[in-house]
């Protein structure tokens, strides 16, 4: 039981539109992972839907790649809608 795989848990709250990552747990298989998730992460009515994903199946960006991955977006202010002036009197925009 010590080598149970790790699972990542996602919960959708009653009002939430999407599942949100809440943590991880150990379980021998997918069915038990779902039940453990219910017991660990929805004890206080946190959600109405659960996803469990094998942690090994998640492909993550590496901290080493942070600069090339994310820094170039920093100075592209024209990607934000607030960059553009809305001309006076324009409706339905």
């Amino acid at each position, binding site marked *: *039981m010590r080598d*149970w795989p790790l699972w990542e848990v996602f919960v959708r709250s009653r009002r939430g539109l999407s599942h949100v990552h809440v943590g991880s*747990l*150990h*379980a*021998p298989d997918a*069915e*038990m992972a779902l*039940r*453990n998730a219910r*017991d*660990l992460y929805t*004890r206080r009515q946190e959600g109405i839907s659960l996803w469990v994903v094998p942690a090994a199946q998640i492909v993550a960006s590496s901290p080493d790649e942070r600069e090339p991955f994310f820094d170039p977006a920093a100075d592209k202010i024209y990607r934000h809608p607030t960059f553009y002036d809305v001309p006076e009197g324009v409706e339905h925009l």
Partner: protein
Amino acid sequence: MSAHLDYVLALADDALVSAQRTSWWISRAPQLEEDVALANIALDQLGQARALLAHAGRLEDAGRGEDELAYLRDEREFHNVKLVERPQADFGVAVARLLLVATWQYELYAALVDSTDAMLAAVAGKAVKEVAYHLDHARQWTLRLGDGTAESARRMQAAVDAEWPYLEELFEPVDPGLLDAGIAVDPTRLRPAVLLRLEQVLAEAALTVPTTGPAVGGGRRGLHTEHLGYLLAEMQHLHRSHPEATW
């Protein structure tokens, strides 16, 4: 004591003693995740016991509430079946016990929803959802251990064999007056559905349905195994030593 009160106390004590035994696993389960799962189940059982004991106290109308009934009765005044009171220090035994108890409680509460005792019906309505999950949890483990390794199969079969003789006590008839009044569910009527479900789970888990005869009953009349006294000593000593203690 009235038959009505006896009946409610019996169901309350089954839940209370189960809760005490299940909670023994807190900090002892094979994984943290299972620790929390069993703690949740024990808390469900305790919640059922509290509601039923409070109801019993009102039926008795002698000034005893849930605490007095839980902590100040002696062994002979407890009406639980022997199934729930014996130690369960082996994980397989804990799983087999939960499978038997939850299967029976599921059928019981599903039928008690229609009781003419409105309080019993309300408790049953809430509890039936809880025990459906307990049953699922026990079933999942029974399947994995029964149909797992040679070692787990051997131990799971031994656990089922050890618990099975205590199943029959759950089906002891109750006072016919309670059935006429629509208060109680006839335990003998629950037997086919309980056995069918258990046999299905055991077959699916590649386990054998034991053919051993029933153990000696008596729990409903206050005649218990030697183990209940020790359980009550541990459960009650704080309240008895410090009657007004709160936290």
